[in-house]
């Protein structure tokens, strides 16, 4: 087993426009990516539990061309609105970093 950060080139979050938040998990090695992808470790239910959301708002895409998993959710608060804490959406990936994955 390994932590997700150890097997990835990049874990990031970012606005996809002011109304959506998107997460990219880009793996170093195709074999590890395929293992994590096929084990469906990063799935709608797990992500929703981790981020305190309903699973039906979580969209997950496997992107083989870049050995990456992408997750998109509606922004709970519009970017830069009075109660937003992260205008760029850049610091939302913390809970993903130490996920245990097969390596």
């Amino acid at each position: 087993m390994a932590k997700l950060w150890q097997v990835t080139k990049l874990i990031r979050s970012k606005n996809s426009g002011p109304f959506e938040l998107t997460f990219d998990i880009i793996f170093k090695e195709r074999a590890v990516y395929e293992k994590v992808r096929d084990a469906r470790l990063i799935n709608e239910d797990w992500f929703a539990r981790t981020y305190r959301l309903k699973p039906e708002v979580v969209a997950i895409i496997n992107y083989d061309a870049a050995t990456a998993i992408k997750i998109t959710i509606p922004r709970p608060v519009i970017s830069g609105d009075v109660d937003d804490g992260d205008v760029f959406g850049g610091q939302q990936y913390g809970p993903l970093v130490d996920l245990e994955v097969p390596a």
Partner: protein
Amino acid sequence: MKEIRILSATGILGSGFREETMKRAMTLKPDFIGADCGSTDPGPHHLGSGEPQFSDAACKRDLRLMLLAARSAKIPVLVGSAMTAGTDAQVERLAGIAREIAHEEKLNFKLATIRSEQDRAYLKKRLKEGRIRPLANAPVFDEAVIDRSSHIVGMCGAEPYVEALQNGADVVIAGRSSDTSIFAAMPVMKGFNPATVWHMAKIMECGAASVVLRKYPDCNFAIVTDDYFIIEPPNPDYRCDPASVASHNLYENSTPYQLVEPSGILNTVNARYEAVSDRAVKVSGSTFEKADRYTIKLEGAELAGYQSIVIGSVRDPIILRQFDHWLENLINAARDRIRAVMGDSIDSRYRLDVRQFGRNAAMGVLEPDMSIGHEVGLLFQITAPEQKLANALAKSLSHIAVHYPVPEWTGLITSVAFPYSPAEIDKGASYRFNMNHVVEPDSPLEMFRIDYEKV
């Protein structure tokens, strides 16, 4: 085979690029130089207030090098989303900078400006006709939203740029545009396959962002044919590989497989990314599906209020052990004090938000871990219709906060550490993005105004 050569100066005008990289790129004989100059990334302030993200000086430095290079090679310069949000005043501001540069450098060119701010009556008409539709997670949109907005811009496609180029523009400065349209316009005008063109444009609009390790902002370069494009960074210290180029489709896009443009959708499901050297990548295989209805995305921002903030931190372990309870009571006490000063009717005229750094300040309601460390940072934020009122309320709040008790200590305590005197900081106007909608115009040019001048 016919080809077109494209130089992207940088990911966002004003963030910079290396002068020597542009010199090297010019030896590759680009057909035009493009740069995006805007984004919604830095939030609603720039659209709401009209103030740009970057300084005039930073934009002038970048634009000067682009204009000098392009005029000496007799190729066009295309800049989109002028001065962050692409309001009419921001287009004029960047056009003014271009005129200054022309004067200082003794350059002559035909300048086209494309204005993208939207007429309120036009939008209300299209709304009545049912020709304004919501996109994902859109807020309510009605006539009141149109009236409340301080600025509304339409995000233009490639067509206004094509129109300007066909009318002989040497330099185009546009209001809000899709980032890709800046780079797609000339290849589309020359009849290149839209699939390779729009895919190239998505990679190029971010400058050097698609290289393996982007250490600083810089130029990028692409050669486009009908069947493929090749991307090779002109900075010899940078390289692209198939993964870095494929990964760029993920960037600030909800899916890497689709890119929605006013005129259609780029589909990259069957795209192939092949290394042609250790620093160049060939991309082919995408498709472009023309949209049934041409659409223009709207961006609007409205005033949310004026803010005063108070920043402080709490270090006492006794307070931290009962933090949620202490903070809740503090906020109630502050609201009581504000009522005592201003009367009960004040409740509906302000909002008080508290951010807890060290707990959930970054993630808010998404945060799964609310545990407390040895210190918590607090940011109290008052939002009210006038700055003076926000400041007055913040003054009442900060005095309650700084002495708010816990039962374990007797006597008057000082419970919050303030880094500033005064503790209250006026933050000015705060804006809110208030639409995520598209309009169906009769033609791609209908919502935009193009003017020409000899500079």
